[in-house]
């Protein structure tokens, strides 16, 4: 029943203007294999897959399916050839039902083009039962949790008889438990004869599930690796030099608690309590990491502290002073440094120079300004020092900030925020989309700020980062605080907390979590159940 398919990419090159995104890439995906493409953000993995899926046309090179060269003019052709793709940002229409989304593009119809969604529902049920997906065909996609939406995407590919499934950074939006479930699904698919191209930069997952690893750096294949290789080995291949994955940090020496949040509630425009009765505090010289899956109130929490949210109740005290109800400017002047989660939208003005971006919060204060005049010389002077201090790789501070790489942009934001005396430092997703080399540097700076005696709050959806930096960990779920646990709490416990289960209820559930984690191919009933 199963037609296996061998996929070969030969010399694929893709240029965007002068940017060389893929440089003569050769990859062979053997039938029934999980083939991992490992590389940093921006290494060209997704571009390569978009070429394979017919979304981009390659500038050079060819794609071979079962040894025969093919050319895809669009995703339709790729699907025809048995290639399916689950995109990093889901390609689902939120206001459609699961069945409508699955049917779209390959709709079973009755006479005169009338939809026959019953046929689609039957197919969804079939696949859902086979892999234990538990997906309701008539549910609206926007009402589904992210993990289920991902399964809908997989069903979409399977309904189209995909023999090769491309998963583009599939774990970015999942909790650790959901990730484990996904890895199990991948193994099941493999045993069912579907090959998988797994794109990731998370070493733990890659090692857990891959048969072959191809490492891509700056658009080139730099080699293949064995899944048994150590994480340090894989990381240095990915980055191109030796990196230390563990941060050397002295134990925290917390002093008095100067930052306090009491019963904080933020109400979204739609009436939902996106932050719901939050209370916590941070001591000087301590890092509190806020963990949680994306979209559980983290953004609103930071925005509330900064004064960017409108309907906020509760109290936010810094050095005994109420921050709530103050303007953003007053909050900043109270000594709050803030690194926003999306640097390109909220952190930088891409068309302004690096030097200008470095003084966005102090442009009107001495030494940069005097009365109504500004001193460009001092601004540039300041830029020179900061660029050196934060190791921003750029020929000049006069260049537009938008021309920098993600890591260097983040260093600019961090440099601006850390370049004045702070009473509180908040960094949201401090290393998202940043190369491994820069992560090391940024983490060190954050710890240095802590050691100067500043209370530090880190918001991160990357569990690795949380565990690395935190002195204490607060976990958010649906706007509520699930609990605050000490650093060194196990990944399993944190994972369950991220799914909304407080630590005191873990006694027996952790056992189940561990079991699912270690089983190679677990049955579908072992993995469900204990999650929300």
């Amino acid at each position, binding site marked *: 029943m199963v037609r296996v398919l061998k996929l070969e990419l030969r010399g694929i090159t893709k240029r965007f203007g002068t940017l060389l995104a893929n440089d003569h890439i050769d990859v062979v995906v053997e039938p029934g294999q999980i083939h991992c493409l490992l590389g940093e953000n921006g290494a060209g993995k997704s571009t390569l897959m978009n070429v394979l899926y017919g979304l981009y046309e390659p500038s050079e090179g060819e794609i071979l399916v079962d040894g025969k060269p093919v050319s895809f003019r669009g995703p339709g052709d790729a699907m025809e050839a048995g290639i399916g793709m689950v995109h990093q940002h889901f390609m689902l229409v939120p*206001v459609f039902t699961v069945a409508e989304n699955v049917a779209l593009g390959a709709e079973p119809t009755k006479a005169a083009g009338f939809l026959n969604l019953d046929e689609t529902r039957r197919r969804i049920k079939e696949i859902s039962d086979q892999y234990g997906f538990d997906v309701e065909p008539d549910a609206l996609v926007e009402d589904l949790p992210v993990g289920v939406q991902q399964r809908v995407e997989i069903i979409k590919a399977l309904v189209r008889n995909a023999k090769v499934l491309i998963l583009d950074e599939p774990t970015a939006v999942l909790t650790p438990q959901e990730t484990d479930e996904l890895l199990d699904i991948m193994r099941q698919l493999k045993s069912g004869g579907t090959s998988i191209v797994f794109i990731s930069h998370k070493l733990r997952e890659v090692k857990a599930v891959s048969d072959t690893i191809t490492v891509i750096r700056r658009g080139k294949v730099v080699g293949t690796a064995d899944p048994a290789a150590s994480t340090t080995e894989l990381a240095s291949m990915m980055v191109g030099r030796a990196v230390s994955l563990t941060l050397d940090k002295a134990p925290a020496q917390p002093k008095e608690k100067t930052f306090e949040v009491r019963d904080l509630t933020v109400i979204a425009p*739609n009436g939902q309590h996106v932050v719901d009765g939050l209370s916590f505090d941070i001591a000087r010289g301590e890092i509190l990491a806020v963990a949680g899956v994306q979209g559980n109130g983290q953004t609103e929490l930071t925005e509330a502290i900064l004064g960017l949210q409108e309907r906020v109740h509760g109290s936010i005290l810094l050095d005994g002073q109420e921050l709530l109800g103050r303007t953003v400017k007053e909050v900043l002047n109270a000594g709050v440094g803030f690194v926003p989660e999306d640097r390109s939208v909220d952190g930088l003005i891409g068309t302004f120079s690096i030097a200008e971006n470095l003084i966005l919060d102090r442009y009107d204060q001495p030494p940069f300004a005097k009365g109504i005049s500004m001193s460009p010389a001092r601004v540039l002077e300041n830029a020179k020092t900061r660029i050196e201090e934060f190791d921003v790789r750029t020929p000049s501070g006069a260049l537009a900030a938008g021309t920098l790489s993600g890591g260097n942009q983040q260093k600019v934001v961090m440099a601006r925020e850390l370049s004045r005396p702070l009473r509180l430092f908040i960094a949201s997703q401090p290393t998202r989309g940043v190369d491994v080399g820069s992560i090391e540097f940024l983490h060190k700076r954050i710890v240095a700020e802590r050691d100067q005696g500043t209370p530090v709050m880190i918001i991160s959806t990357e569990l690795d980062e949380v565990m690395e930096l935190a002195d204490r960990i607060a976990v958010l779920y649906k706007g509520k605080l699930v609990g605050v646990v000490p650093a060194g709490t196990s990944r399993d416990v944190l994972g369950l907390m991220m799914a909304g289960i407080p630590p005191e209820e873990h006694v027996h559930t952790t056992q189940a979590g561990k079991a699912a984690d270690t089983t190679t191919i677990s049955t579908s009933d072992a993995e469900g159940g204990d999650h929300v």
Partner: protein
Amino acid sequence: MSTTVSSSRPGNPQPGNAGKDAAAATVSAKPVGWKTPVFLAAFALIALVFFGLLAPNQTASFGISTGSDFFQLPAIQVNAFAGGLVLSILLLGLAAYAIYLKTRDNPVPGWLTVAFIVLFVAAFLIWVVGGARTPSISLAGLIAGSVTLAVPLVFGSLSGVLCERVGVVNIAIEGQLLGGAFTAAIVASITQNPFVGLLAAAVAGAVVSMVLALFSIKYLVNQIIVGVVLNVLVSGVTGFLFSTVMQANKAQFNSPPGLDIIEVPVLSSIPVIGPILFRQSLVGYLMYIAVLVVWVGLFKTRWGLRVRAVGEHPQAADTLGINVNATRFWNVTLGGAVAGIGGSFFTLVAIDSFTKEISGGRGFIALAALIFGRWNPIGAFFAALLFGFADNLQSIVTIIGTPVPSQFMAMLPYLVTVLAVAGLVGKSRGPAASGIPYVKG
């Protein structure tokens, strides 16, 4: 250039989006605001003061049968003071219930809003007729006339539905109506055949739409601006041709043979319903068919599923092998043809010649009907009917002579438009990708 590079590197995550999506996913309750209850209360009070307490003590009479009906129903007689008082107390009751619901954090249900509108309109009618010199109107005639006036509006808003559902904002409905009206007049005059004129009107509307489609889809020009420019262009061109060609030789170029009213035997004699459904011109019948066809098409067929997908999430449609821009182009063109047919109503049915600006801003009212009808063909139909009703009411009321100055009555359709869209629609959600050009990658 820099945008091309950054947007074509999907390796970079776009933080925020996924998070917001996830947050949105957990929201199911609709926002509950004070706006609707307060709005209803204010209007209930207006009704109480003007239509109730200040109403003249005169009897208003509403005829509900026309001469050609099977059987004659007696006219409804209402004392304006008593009727106004009773209705405004009912309105106050509804408003109070809405406020009560709000205090318990429940949204105002749709039936309540509809009931409120119906009662308010009834109170207004009783007041206005009761105060007139001849306090008697034909209700059946009023409703039938409303449908007639609504015909171009319905076609216009269907055009809007077809365009916005696929992700293109069509501000050019006015231009499409006007182009249709002009072309129908001139072609029907030359060929002396109204059916050819009707066809030509559809083509003219489609041509206007194709310009919109070309510039907004292929050249990514701001859709609102193209739409506005097209309206001005069509108005200028038809105005120019009217004064140079049509007026110079009216007999040859501006005396189109009209489309006759086709009466369905027997059925057209049913009181009230008969004239509305079975005593229409070809364009009127086409309107009913078009509303149904567009609705069924959008929600029951493969074509509709793809159209809606393109309007909601074009990238998703693209990854499933649907040609986004081609789908958009042909839908916008189809929308233009529909609006063009609506335009022919002006010159082939309503009036037997073209005049400058004959569409008189109805394209914009159609746009409002589209939003009030929540991008749904049937909703848009009823919204257009409401505006047609307001339009017809003001002319009838002016004829029977009311205490209200006619200039104020002439404002009625537009007043209704503003109130409906601003006060009652609330935060309605249109197609997510409407107005956003689709660029691959």
